[in-house]
Structure formats: structure tokens, C-alpha cells
């Protein structure tokens, strides 16, 4: 992501604060410099780091449930791009534009959206640093998504600009789609699945369906080789196995962890094997977004953030709530729907705490669709309760089979939940 020019940033910051309104004194002289307190806090303020599924939802629900609380959302991307449905960009069934939404809905609710990255968190002084400036907060929501453990694959740190993950929807998704499109008929597409835990457990397998579907239609001599670090398909296992019967062009290899990549010979290496590729989609092992690691919100594994199951407050730092894919310890998948649920529960917890009210128990839910062809989808649904202040699964249910009807409901889910995150 290109960093914004300083002038541009200041303009968006002041516009944003103008929309937030109600701030005694407004920005005043603060806008003249990025140093020091960028926007002195007059009332109660929540800063949200990250405008993805968790952070955007949290910002929206705080403003919705208590409009007297100022909310500042820090998100470097100008627009929201949905990871769910982005595998359909690879098969050409959707455009990236169809998955792109603006943050205007949040602005309309008085969220002060600033397109900048948080550079550090100072829990003791309750400040978020943005370059040389800072914002103070009463409570902080950290929703940084995932980052990659590049150095777990030999050769990857040097090749990270050219070896695509396409695991954050956007530029890389479009680039990977273009590479697949321009691959010769007979070319080999290699996809590597990282070891759990990673973002979106069924995501790699849905991607395999989409690429296999595209190749079957357009490049019948091509094949998809899947190198899965895990012992089996991680999610919706039986349903994906059945779906893959329609794609004889899939060569699935379980327990094949990629350990090295060489872009000069177009080859990846596993513990046992060398595999040649024409197009490579290497999804690296993952951890919580960099800011969470840097701010010491991660546990002993240095990867994921442990949180309270009711409020999503970090177990490591007071007044900081962590939501979405960067969390660990709840029996939930790292999905957009779960991040949305966590964002809501964190928001209502924060509003309750700031108003001295008891925090209600708000268990999450997970509805997760995967497209297995151009028309059909499958789904898994998880419902939860909270017992003794811990999230416990009540039930997991899978669709009995793939169908057009499930795909229609997937579209319905998309329409609904984007509104719940952004409007």
C-alpha cells in the first residue's frame, strides 16, 4: 500500500473529524503539524486499528449504540475489499470492483476514518502513534488481520514481491487472476496451503475449486497441484472431496509442507519433493498483524492474541480489545463472519464499560459459504454459547450437499453482512 502524502493525510483527517462533529474546539492548530497530539481528545474516544471485517464492524456498532463516544478508525486502504468471494475473481466469475465498498457508510455514522497506519501502541499512556504524531484513547480496538511468516519458506523473503499469496483481497488477487489467465494450456498451477492456524480454513480449498473450474473450461490440458501442509482438507472435508470429483485436473497432496521456493527455476520444494510450476500461489504461514506483535499483544507463541471471551479485551494489556483473525483461544474459525461477530461484541462491551454498565454475554456465530463451481456452493455453520465466561460451541452443521440454492444464500449472506460491517 502506498503511503499517503502528508498533505493528503491532514486533509482527510480534518474532513473526518469535521464529520465526527461535536468535538469542542475541533482540530484547531493541531492540523498544522503531524507531531504531537494529532487531535486532542475532549470527550470519550475509542480508536480502532484496522478497517476490515472486525474493526469496521466495531467502529459502526460503537457509534450506533452510543453516539456520544468519538470513534477514530485507522485504515491505510482507501476502500474495503472483501476477502469472502475473492476466490471468484480468480475464476473470472466476479470483478474485484464488485467486492469493493467505500467507507462512506461509516463516515455517515460519524466514524472518523483516517487512511493511515498505526505505527505503534503505547498502552501505558493510552496512545496510538501515527508516524511522529499520536492519538489518545479511552479504549482501543485492534483488528489488524494477519501477516505472513515469510522466513518459514526458504527463498520467500527475497521473492515476496513476485510470489503471490492473494490472501488479502486486492492487488494480488487481480495479479494472480491475470497470471492464471495468461498461463499456457498445459501449464501447471501450484497452490500451497499453510499449516493451521491460518485465515479462512476452507479458503484454500474453495480456491482450488475455482481455479480447477476455470482451467477445466479454458485450459483443459492444465492441472492444479495442491501442496497441503496439513494431513487432510482442513474444513468441509467431505463436501470438498465430493466437489473435486468434478475436477480430474486436481492433484491433491496432503502432508506436503512447502519449505523452499526458487523463482529462477520455477520450483517449490517440500520435505520430500520438488515440484515445477508455471503459476505459483504460495500462501505462507501466518500470524497476527504486525502491530499486534509489535505491541506485545501476542502470546508466548509470538503469533496470536489471547483475549477475554466476553469483552475481547487483551489478556496482556488493559483497555485494549483485539478482534478478528489475530485472536486465538476461542473455538472459532478465523472467518469474516466471526470477525464481524467479535467486532459487535467488543463494541457493545466497550460502550457498556465506558458507561459503567454490566457487559452482556454475546456469543459469536459463524456462517461460512464456499463456492465449489460457477453455480454451486457448500456451507458450514457454527453456533456458540458462553459458559463460565468461555465461548463454547453448541453445534456445527454442514449443508448436506453442494447446490445452487446454497449459492443463492451465499449471495444473500454477502449482501447482508457487508451492510452489517459498513453501512
Amino acid at each position, binding site marked *: 500500500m502506498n503511503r499517503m502524502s502528508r498533505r493528503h493525510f491532514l486533509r482527510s483527517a480534518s474532513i473526518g473529524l469535521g464529520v465526527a462533529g*461535536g*468535538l*469542542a474546539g475541533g482540530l484547531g492548530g493541531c492540523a498544522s503539524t503531524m507531531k504531537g497530539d494529532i487531535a486532542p481528545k*475532549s*470527550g*470519550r474516544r475509542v480508536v480502532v486499528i484496522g478497517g476490515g471485517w472486525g474493526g469496521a464492524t466495531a467502529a459502526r*456498532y460503537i457509534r*450506533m*449504540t*452510543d*453516539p*456520544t*463516544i468519538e470513534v477514530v478508525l485507522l485504515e491505510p486502504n482507501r476502500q474495503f475489499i472483501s476477502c469472502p468471494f475473492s476466490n471468484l475473481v480468480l475464476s473470472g466469475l466476479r470483478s474485484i470492483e464488485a467486492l469493493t465498498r467505500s467507507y462512506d457508510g461509516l463516515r455517515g455514522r460519524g466514524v472518523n476514518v483516517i487512511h493511515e497506519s498505526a505505527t505503534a501502541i503505547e498502552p501505558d499512556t493510552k496512545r496510538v502513534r501515527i508516524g511522529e504524531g499520536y492519538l489518545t484513547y479511552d479504549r482501543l480496538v485492534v483488528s489488524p488481520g494477519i501477516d505472513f511468516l515469510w522466513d518459514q519458506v526458504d527463498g520467500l523473503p527475497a521473492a515476496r514481491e513476485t510470489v503471490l499469496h492473494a490472501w488479502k483481497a486486492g492487488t494480488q488477487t487481480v495479479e494472480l487472476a491475470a497470471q492464471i489467465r495468461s498461463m499456457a494450456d498445459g501449464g501447471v498451477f501450484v497452490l500451497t496451503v499453510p499449516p493451521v492456524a491460518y485465515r479462512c480454513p476452507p479458503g484454500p480449498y474453495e480456491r482450488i475449486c475455482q481455479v480447477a473450474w476455470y482451467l477445466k473450461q479454458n485450459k483443459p490440458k492444465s492441472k492444479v497441484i495442491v501442496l497441503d501442509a496439513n494431513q487432510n482438507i482442513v474444513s468441509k472435508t467431505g463436501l470438498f472431496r465430493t466437489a473435486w470429483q468434478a475436477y480430474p485436473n486436481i492433484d491433491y497432496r496432503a502432508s506436503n509442507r512447502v519449505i523452499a521456493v526458487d523463482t529462477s527455476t520455477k520450483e517449490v520444494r517440500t520435505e520430500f519433493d520438488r515440484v515445477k510450476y508455471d503459476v505459483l500461489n504460495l500462501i505462507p504461514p501466518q500470524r497476527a498483524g504486525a502491530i499486534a506483535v509489535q505491541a506485545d499483544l501476542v502470546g508466548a507463541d509470538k503469533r496470536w492474541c489471547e483475549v477475554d471471551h466476553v469483552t475481547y479485551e487483551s489478556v496482556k494489556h488493559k483497555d485494549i480489545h483485539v478482534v478478528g483473525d489475530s485472536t486465538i483461544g476461542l473455538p472459532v474459525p478465523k472467518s469474516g*463472519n466471526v470477525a*464481524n*461477530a467479535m467486532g*459487535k*461484541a467488543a463494541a*457493545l462491551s466497550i*460502550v*457498556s464499560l*465506558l*458507561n*459503567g*454498565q454490566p457487559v*452482556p454475554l*454475546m*456469543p*459469536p*456465530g459463524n*456462517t461460512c459459504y464456499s463456492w465449489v463451481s460457477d453455480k454451486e456452493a457448500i*456451507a*458450514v*455453520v*457454527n*453456533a*456458540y*454459547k458462553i459458559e463460565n465466561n468461555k465461548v463454547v460451541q*453448541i*453445534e*456445527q*452443521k*454442514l*449443508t*448436506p450437499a453442494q447446490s445452487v*440454492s446454497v449459492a*443463492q*444464500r451465499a*449471495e*444473500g*449472506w*454477502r*449482501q*447482508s*453482512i457487508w*451492510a*452489517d460491517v459498513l*453501512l
Partner: protein
Amino acid sequence: MTTFRIPAALAAAALGLLAGFGPAGAAGPLDNPGFALVITCSACHGQNGNSRSDMMPIIAGLDQAYFKRQIENYAAGRRPSPEMEPYAKQIQFLGLDQIAAYFMAQKREATLIRVSPDAVAKGKVAAAQCVICHGEGGKGDPARLIPGLAGQPPGYLAQQMLLFKQDTRDPGDPLLAAKKALMRTIPDSQFPELAAFYSSLR
């Protein structure tokens, strides 16, 4: 939007924190304890049950007896739905009575999904048989557990008609026998038109 008194603003004023904020009395959904119980639902069913999607029904303003019956049927598998069976159990855990009452108290807003006037016109003709139960305006009859169809998303209505016809929704339920018999006389191709008509009603 339902409006509630807002203790947040009152508390802030009492603490003397803020001078420039609006008067107490602005909307504050957290004042209603039901709001925290239904935040899972809004991912699919929209704010306060006003779905914005074509496939998920609007549950704002739904009669509470009808709501409870559906949740019980989902949980027991009588109304099969991989999505709603787990969530129905979650609702039972959180408090079915309170959640049913919450949604009934919400103001229903008609779907934003648009339908073609041509389909509406055809559907209106075909709907002559439906008014006996669902009423002229598609408002339903809560006393007989018949839901209002007016303004529901068309995709949802069409899918439910198909499920009734196939007898996969509440199979063997005597209350639905006549409805299903009627559905079996209607060709599948007519369901989207009937759905468009009822969806267009306000």
C-alpha cells in the same frame, strides 16, 4: 428506528465531561437488553431484523408466536436448514421468549430488493388463491400463525414456496397441508412472479 432514552448521554452530562453534545434523548439501542441478544442475527437478517438481502427474510415486526414456532421447528430439524438449526439452538440458549418479543417490537421496513413490474403484474393474477389465508394486502393473520408476506425479499419467498411444494419444510404439519396442496398446483416457474407480487406490496 426504535428510539430509547440514552443513559450514556445522561451519564456523560452528570459527570460534566461534555458541553457540546446533543441533548439527552437521542437513540441508544443498548438501553434495550434485547439488542445485545440479537447482534448475531444482524449479520444475515439486518439491523433489528430488517434484512437487506434477497434470500434472508425480514424478521422485524414478526408475530412472536410465529417466530417461536419457527425457531422450535428449526432447532428440532422439522424445518431443515443448515444455517438456522445451529442458530435456533443459540437463540434458545439466549432466551427465545425475549428474542421473539424483541423482533416483534421492531418496525418492519420493506425490502430494498427491486422486482420487475411485469413479474408483479403476472404474480398479482396468480395470487388470487393466496388471499384467503395471507389477506388482500399480504399482511397475514397472526391468530392463525400465518405470516405477512408484504415487502419480504422476493428470493426468500420464491425459495420457501419451492420448499413447501417439495414438502421439505415442516413435513407432515397438518397446519400446512392445504398450503402445500395448493403449491403443488402451481408450476415452479410461477413462484418468482408470485414472490415479486408479494415483495412489491407495502
